[in-house]
């Protein structure tokens, strides 16, 4: 009898989980199509189909293939990788407030971008014009990796990495990066200040297939690798000692997971700027729906991250067309109150 009850319960749970994933995939497809359809110029599904097939009218085809499709792919890639990295870091650090910013990714990328924007003319003058558009993303990527490597390096002591130390080192290094950014912002001219301000608010615009292709490939490979950490993250919930007792090489896993997150998020930040809140809020919402088991939580967070970021992008593009608000404003403005509502409803959290 007990076995039968268990099986029935599992059946119900399995159906519920399957339903959640079907709903998330359906929502993702809907917003992805919406991203192609909606905008200052509204396109029909047949126009989009023709454009994709390569035999549409020139203007809709250009809008779809050169503007909206790369933007949609980038949004999916960034949303999914930010969310999965947030879920991994929250699990790894056993800290619900963890997000990619904690290990210095955003701080490092921002510092490198500020250096290039404000001081770039001093040492990048000889760079050919064809390479110039890629200087900022490359700098951001390198900055993200460098600062993350510094934080992970300093967080280690006697070959072991303490989570408390990691957080404190992250705070210190981010503060130093922040001071550097503040100084360079202070000495920047009006044009540089405007560039800095818009980059720091994040945007999926101004992207072509080349940059999107590289960035999204890095993000997707990293995210798939992170899915393999699901069981280890479950064991981390027992605490590091018990996780070690269950067979995990604790320091190796912490270091490699943080490094992969840095690569994934660095690839996104480098091309779209820092986009807040998705990495923090998506895993929380996913956890409330589907539970804490990471083999479900990681993919659910990723799908939800993609949906949320594309929703935010749809809103910023369609509120006052053809003007476009920074996407970071939308993710915080929409995500913040919604997150607060969920937290207040979930009394046990």
């Amino acid at each position, binding site marked *: 009898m007990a076995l039968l009850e*268990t099986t029935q319960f599992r059946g119900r749970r399995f159906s519920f989980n399957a339903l959640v994933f079907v709903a998330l995939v359906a929502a993702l497809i809907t917003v992805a199509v919406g991203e192609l359809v909606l905008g200052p110029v509204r396109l029909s599904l047949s126009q989009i189909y023709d454009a994709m097939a390569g035999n549409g009218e020139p203007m809709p085809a250009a809008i779809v293939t050169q503007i909206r499709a790369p933007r949609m792919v980038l949004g999916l890639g960034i949303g999914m990788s930010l969310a999965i990295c947030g879920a991994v870091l929250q699990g790894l650090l*056993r800290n619900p407030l963890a997000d990619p910013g904690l290990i210095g990714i955003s701080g490092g990328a921002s510092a490198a971008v500020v250096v290039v924007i404000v001081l770039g003319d001093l040492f990048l003058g000889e760079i050919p014009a064809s390479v110039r558009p890629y200087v900022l993303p490359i700098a951001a990527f390198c900055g993200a990796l460098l600062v993350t490597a510094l934080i992970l390096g300093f967080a280690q002591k006697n070959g072991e990495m303490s989570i408390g130390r990691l957080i404190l080192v992250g705070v210190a290094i981010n503060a130093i990066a922040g001071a550097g950014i503040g100084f360079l912002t202070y000495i920047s001219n009006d044009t540089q200040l405007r560039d800095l301000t818009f980059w720091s608010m994040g945007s999926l615009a101004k992207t072509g297939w080349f940059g999107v292709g590289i960035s999204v490939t890095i993000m997707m490979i990293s995210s798939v690798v992170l899915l393999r950490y699901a069981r280890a993250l479950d064991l981390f919930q*027992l605490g590091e000692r018990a996780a*070690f*007792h*269950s*067979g995990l*090489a604790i320091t190796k896993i912490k270091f490699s997971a943080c490094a992969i997150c840095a690569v994934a998020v660095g690839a996104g930040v480098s091309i779209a700027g820092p986009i807040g809140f998705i990495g923090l809020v998506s895993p929380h919402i996913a956890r409330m729906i589907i539970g804490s*088991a990471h083999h479900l939580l990681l993919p659910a967070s990723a799908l939800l991250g993609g949906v949320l970021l594309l929703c935010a992008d749809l809103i910023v593009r369609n509120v006052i067309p053809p003007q476009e608000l920074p996407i970071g404003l939308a993710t915080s403005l929409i995500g913040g109150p919604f997150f607060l509502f969920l937290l207040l409803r979930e009394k046990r959290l």
Partner: protein
Amino acid sequence: MITGRNLSLAFGNTPILRGANIDVPFGKLVAVCGPNGAGKSTVLSVLAGEQKHYQGDVYFGDDALANLTPRQLSRRRAVLEQSPSLSANFCVDELVRLSIPMELPPRDTDVMVRNILGQLGLSEFAKRRVDNLSGGQRHRAHLARVLAQVYANQTLFGAGYLFLDEPTASLDILHQIAVMKIARSAAQNGVGVLVVLHDLNLAAAFADDIVMVNGGKTVAAGSVGQVFQSKLLSQIYETPINVDKHSSGRLVIYPELQDLAG
């Protein structure tokens, strides 16, 4: 068998272990006893592989502890911490499955989890969130998790060891006995069980062998009757302790409280 010889360990300039020795054979329940700060839990943590900077030799059979990876070690021993914790909102069933190796077929895993939950009286709580259980139930749920690890590894790789660090510390007398019966039953199933215990009467009732630790050293080791002697215990605990034989044949250990008698 696990053999630990001349185990020494210092935290900074403070020596915690100073040449402790211990053997844990398969199929036996070995209790490590001693006063507060004697180094009991540290002995367990060295054998569990947690301490990197100890001196001395630890062997799991023919294999030196230092040469075992965390994964290899987890196949040979499971450890229940004194205060196990859980950050996620797993239900009991999910918690128990956590430490079971992936190599065990799903059908066998289901049967094993069901049996262990039944053995610990947790079947009705299988789908309840762990953070909604009482302290005693939570402790039993974590015990179920390490038992599942031990028995799964026994099925896959041969007999292993179960380390319990003061498993009865936060439990009432009923649950203390229940936990010790489970440890005893694991030993009867061929598992080598190492239990750190404060309660000498529980040790006398359930252990095969006693290792008495004091000041970081093994001061006595052997059967219950050999170690639990009034003079030795009185010296170690620095207070008069009596050892009597109960009508059941079991030893009963109690301190003299002459000051309170009058």
